């Protein structure tokens, strides 16, 4: 068991590092160009603001030379003179990231105006947790009970409706349903607000109420699309278990169907269910990037998309790091839980 946990942890750490390396490799070169342009712009604007510097030069060449040295100096201070793939720069970046020091965002700021990536991330994360984690919990509760219920009546009307609903809803993109919901319930019948961002400041006492009201439409949408496949999954696990010998034995000694399903069978279906729950809870932290874009929900997903469109490297790296960490932790927990419930996995043979 110890060896199992240790190999797992090493793999996870490796994955984390590889993810970061790939991210830096993908955005690094673009980012360097942007940063260098920024420096050139900064130097030039400082000089135009201060005409006395320009007057102190006799020729144009000398003046241009001065500007060039200024630019080069700053590039050197920031370490941009070496390419992004130099081991030194990557090493420094990775070391800082591991210590959760993501630096400052280039363009984006938090609502309070801080450009510290950590502030931005931890401002957006609770909102994503509020919407997506709530939705995931609701989905799993509905899913488990509906799944267990329809597995007790295989072939019945409810079973068929659940199964077909699961199949149909799985092929609709959530964000498209979101667009439809906005179209129907925000514009055609004006029940909910079309944008999910509350329009009053967070210090207002009515803020919570407003936030919940704005959250309703995305929440309904996500739950509506999500619970079908959960129910279907749980149903399939349960149907498999209901055919096992020990359940049939329990039936023959006269334990009621209801008791068998909700205590004995559900307990045995727990390992896969718990695994999936752990994975989907962590998946929910990323917030569906596209869903947040549709509903204009100010969480991690939208932050990520905004950061990529303006190529804000520190934010991209910070968010990727955070998402990957959560994802890996949950895979890890899921693995451990699975091993705990199902001892066959642990022996690894």
């Amino acid at each position, binding site marked *: 068991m110890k060896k199992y946990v240790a190999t797992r942890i090493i*793999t*996870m750490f*490796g*994955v984390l590092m*590889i*993810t970061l390396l*790939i*991210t830096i490799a*993908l*955005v690094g070169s*673009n980012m360097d160009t942007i940063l260098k342009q920024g420096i050139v712009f900064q130097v030039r604007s400082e000089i135009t603001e201060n005409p006395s510097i320009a007057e102190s030069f006799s020729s144009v060449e000398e003046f241009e030379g001065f500007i060039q040295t200024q630019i080069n100096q700053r590039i050197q201070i920031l370490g941009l003179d070496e390419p992004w793939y130099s081991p030194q720069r990557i090493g420094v970046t990775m070391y800082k990231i591991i210590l959760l020091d993501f630096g400052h965002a280039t363009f984006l700021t938090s609502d309070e105006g801080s450009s510290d990536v950590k502030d931005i991330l931890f401002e957006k994360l609770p909102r994503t947790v509020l919407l997506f984690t709530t939705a995931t919990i609701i989905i799993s509760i509905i899913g488990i009970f509906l799944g267990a219920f329809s597995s007790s009546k*295989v*072939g019945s009307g409810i079973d068929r409706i659940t199964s077909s609903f699961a*199949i*149909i809803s*799985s*092929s*609709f*993109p959530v*964000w*498209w*349903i979101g*667009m*439809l919901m*906005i*179209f129907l319930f*925000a*514009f*055609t019948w004006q029940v909910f607000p*079309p944008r999910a961002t509350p329009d009053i400041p967070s210090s207002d006492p009515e803020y919570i109420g407003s936030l919940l009201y704005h959250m309703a439409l995305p929440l309904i949408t996500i739950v509506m699309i999500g619970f079908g496949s959960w129910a279907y999954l749980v149903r*399939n696990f349960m*149907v*498999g278990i209901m*055919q096992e010998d020990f359940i049939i034995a329990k039936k023959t000694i006269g334990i009621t169907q209801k008791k068998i399903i909700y205590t004995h069978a559900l307990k045995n279906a727990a390992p896969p269910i718990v695994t999936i729950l752990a994975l989907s809870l962590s998946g929910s932290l*990323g917030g569906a*990037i*596209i869903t947040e*874009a*549709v509903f204009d929900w100010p969480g991690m997903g939208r932050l*990520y*998309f905004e950061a*990529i*469109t303006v*190529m804000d490297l520190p934010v*991209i790296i910070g*968010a*990727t790091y955070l*998402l*990957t960490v959560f*994802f*890996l932790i949950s*895979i890890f927990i899921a693995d451990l839980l699975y091993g705990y419930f199902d001892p066959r996995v642990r022996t690894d043979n």
Partner: protein
Amino acid sequence: MNNIAPQEIKQEFLKSKMGIAGIVILLTLGIVSIIAIIAIPIETFQEWNNPSNWIENPKVAIPIWINIFLSEKIPEHKILNEPNIKKITSEEIELISHQFGLNFDYVDFPNDFIYEFSSEYSGNPLLQMSVIRPDGVKLNLLTTALPYSNEKTVHSERIFSTEQAIKKNLSLQSENFEFEFKRLSAEDIVFSKTHVNEPLKGDYIFLIDLYGINSENRIYESKLIVGGKAFGIMGTDELRRDLAIGLLWGTPLALFIGLAVSIASVVAGLLYGVYAGYKGKKTDEVMMRFNDVIYALPALPFLIILSVTISNSIFVMVGFLMVFGWVGIAKVSRSMSLQIKTRGYVDAANMMGQKDSKIILKHIVPQLLPYAFASIAISVPAAITTEAGLSFLGLGDPTFPTWGQILHDANTFGAAARGMWWWIMPPGVMIAITGLAFVFIGNALDAIINPKLKR
């Protein structure tokens, strides 16, 4: 895993209603794709994002068929390009007359009218535009001379109903009408009843007369566009694009994306997993750790970064989607091949000294084929929706617009707020139907391979 003969699978599959439904939908989509590829040249389609290509179409027009359900019909956008051509020569003067018949049967005025033409002439011909209304009144709209030229020249022009000269000409004929013109636009007068300013239904004839002294004048590409609020089977969007074309061409694209991604990733995952499982020991360990790494990468964020930084070409995107698609299949096929390789005939083949590649391809892979087909079908919808999602974020390939991109445009132009359901509904429905076809087929296959679920 049980062994099922292909024949049996086919029989079972034909019994399943769901599978049949999936096949039927898929065939329909295939036919639609073929129609799209044959009927709409790809050059037209690649001009999707070029606004000048769509200038003849109306803005945000509702689909035409909506008129069937309405008692008060919405004016249709009409592009008339087959005029009645007459040629009259008397002495030196030659008259070329293009006549456009228009049946106007709506309770709303048209948006505008545009006459578009190219003319080949020499000298200084005179162009006269007039309209004969259902009540017999003939209105002179415009009299203009084409630019003088000594030699033979070609001149193209668009005459818009908003032109000042038309308004002026109409106000000279205001004795025909019993209401004040003031701020009314030309089309509101031309298509109006004489006593009140309400649309007059009936047959209109638009006359374009070209008077020339030289006998070699010619008008070609003569088109009269009467702007309406309904157009085509699927309507148009903010940029005047015919949504029917986008939706039709989206079908082969979606099928291509879905099938290419799922087939490639299933094949790659299958071979990878089987090889790892068959080899076992160190090879298996290393290959599975690599598999874990890919599995743990956050797919959508990476796809976004890749499409922003590397390329958003549709073919490159298919490759990126593959990179994240094969992982799960590799895991399952590995565990399946672990079971299969313990069977006697694999051992026998091994002892006979057959090559590993031969054993894998001849003895193990065929056993996994039913599973592979089911996985291909099941992973198609995910590929399609992921691509649609990326396009929806505005990261799609502009030369091959997909359904996701239509939805992206709908979102940016606020189609939901403006009630333009014909811009939002059809692309999503198409995505869902395509996904559904494959889910049906996949589930039907799955039920045959895992008979436990059937009960």
